[in-house]
């Protein structure tokens, strides 16, 4: 059994927190950190067992159960959002504890050890936990290895892209929207779309000229609607923190600039 204890090192304000279950005075933020540190009740139990320096197969159910429950109670007292999985485990432990207290008349073999199932689960979990650490060490793409790619510069660059028709595109969008549970009030209609499109056009203009005069964004020949759409697009770009409006004095020229 190898559990890397340093994996469980918990620091609060730079000070290591050790001996969690014994020491009842734990700063509330430490508990929060602890809860985030464990992958669930089995992980927490493995930690408690390891702390006692005992073999999984020889768990002393009483102290472990007491520690675990003490622990859960503390968290509840501090009103932490506690995953139900932790409470289920507390109940399981309590059940095992009570069954071990009842004198056992039947043969005292492993089959009837109320701890057997829990030990099996702990060992199984420990196995995958160790494997996950090993998997993380395997060289993998974009961390240890990088794929090499070159450009194929066709003389006649006529890429044969897969054909998608508009219906397929619409279908894909509807599916996404359904999943995102976007309600009718967020409904996208042509008008909103043309604002989004204009936002792209204005951004292009700003990118080309670095600093663009506000009035240069408008094309009067587009009529009133065109001007309104452009204005809405600029407001939206400002709202979304994509561009800045700059004006040196009131009533002087307004400039548009991309955020650095």
């Amino acid at each position, binding site marked *: 059994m190898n559990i890397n204890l340093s994996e469980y090192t918990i620091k609060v304000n730079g000070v290591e927190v050790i001996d969690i279950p014994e020491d009842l005075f734990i700063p509330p933020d430490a508990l929060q950190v602890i809860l985030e540190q464990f992958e669930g009740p089995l992980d927490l139990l493995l930690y408690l067992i390891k702390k006692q320096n005992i073999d999984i197969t020889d768990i002393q159910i009483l102290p472990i159960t007491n520690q675990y429950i003490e622990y859960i109670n503390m968290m509840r007292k501090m009103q932490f959002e506690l995953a139900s999985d932790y409470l289920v485990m507390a109940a399981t432990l309590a059940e095992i504890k009570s069954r071990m207290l009842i004198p056992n008349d039947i043969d005292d073999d492993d089959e009837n050890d109320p701890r057997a199932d829990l030990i099996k689960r702990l060992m199984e979990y420990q196995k995958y936990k160790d494997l996950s650490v090993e998997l993380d060490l395997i060289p993998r793409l974009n961390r240890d290895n*990088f*794929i*090499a*790619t*070159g*450009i*194929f*510069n*066709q*003389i006649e660059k006529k*890429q*044969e*892209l*897969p054909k*998608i*028709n*508009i*219906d*397929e*595109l*619409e279908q*894909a*969008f*509807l*599916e*996404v*929207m*359904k*999943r*995102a549970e*976007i*309600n*009718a009030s*967020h*409904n*996208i*209609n*042509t008008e909103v*779309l*043309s604002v*989004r*499109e204009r*936002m*792209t056009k204005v*951004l*292009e203009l*700003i*990118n080309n000229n670095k600093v663009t005069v506000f009035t240069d964004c408008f094309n009067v020949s587009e009529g009133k609607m065109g001007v309104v759409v452009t204005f809405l697009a600029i407001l939206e770009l400002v709202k*979304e*923190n*994509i*561009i800045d409006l700059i004006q040196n004095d009131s009533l002087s020229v307004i400039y548009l600039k*991309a*955020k650095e």
Partner: protein
Amino acid sequence: MSKRQNIELIIESALLVSQSPLSVRELVDLFDSNKPAKNTIKKAIETLNKSYVNRSFEIVEVASGFRIQVKNGYDEWLVKLEKQISSRFSKAFLETLVIIAYRQPVTRGDIENIRGVSVNPQIIRNMIEFEWIRVVGHKDTPGKPELLATTKKFLDHFNLRSLNELPEIKESIV
């Protein structure tokens, strides 16, 4: 490995890995301490190109920098390869594309929020390579995420004159 060779191989590996051309400036910035001079970088690229005389590729300078590109004369075989690869788009590809089309300009984060899954960087890279989308700016939020928008080429592919011609999303369906 001599110091000299080292710089060359680091440049070679960077050009191979990068998805877009790298400028001399960007190549200099790969090195933390002991940054090589710009001239050293240019000389290294020359030396590399000489060593590629019996290879199928070379380093080419384009507008935004240097990239590795297959030499002329391989079309016959590589055209077939492109056909093999681009037979069909995945659902993830289509969904990401429509979100960019309808919600542009968007960040990867926006796409992730809508789709509920992280964006596969390869998909974005492919779209940029097809020149269907491009980076139009950066959002002024932590990390300065790239803002993505569709291009004219995207519209051309779907025979659209403007984004207004994209299918309208009907209220009843949503």
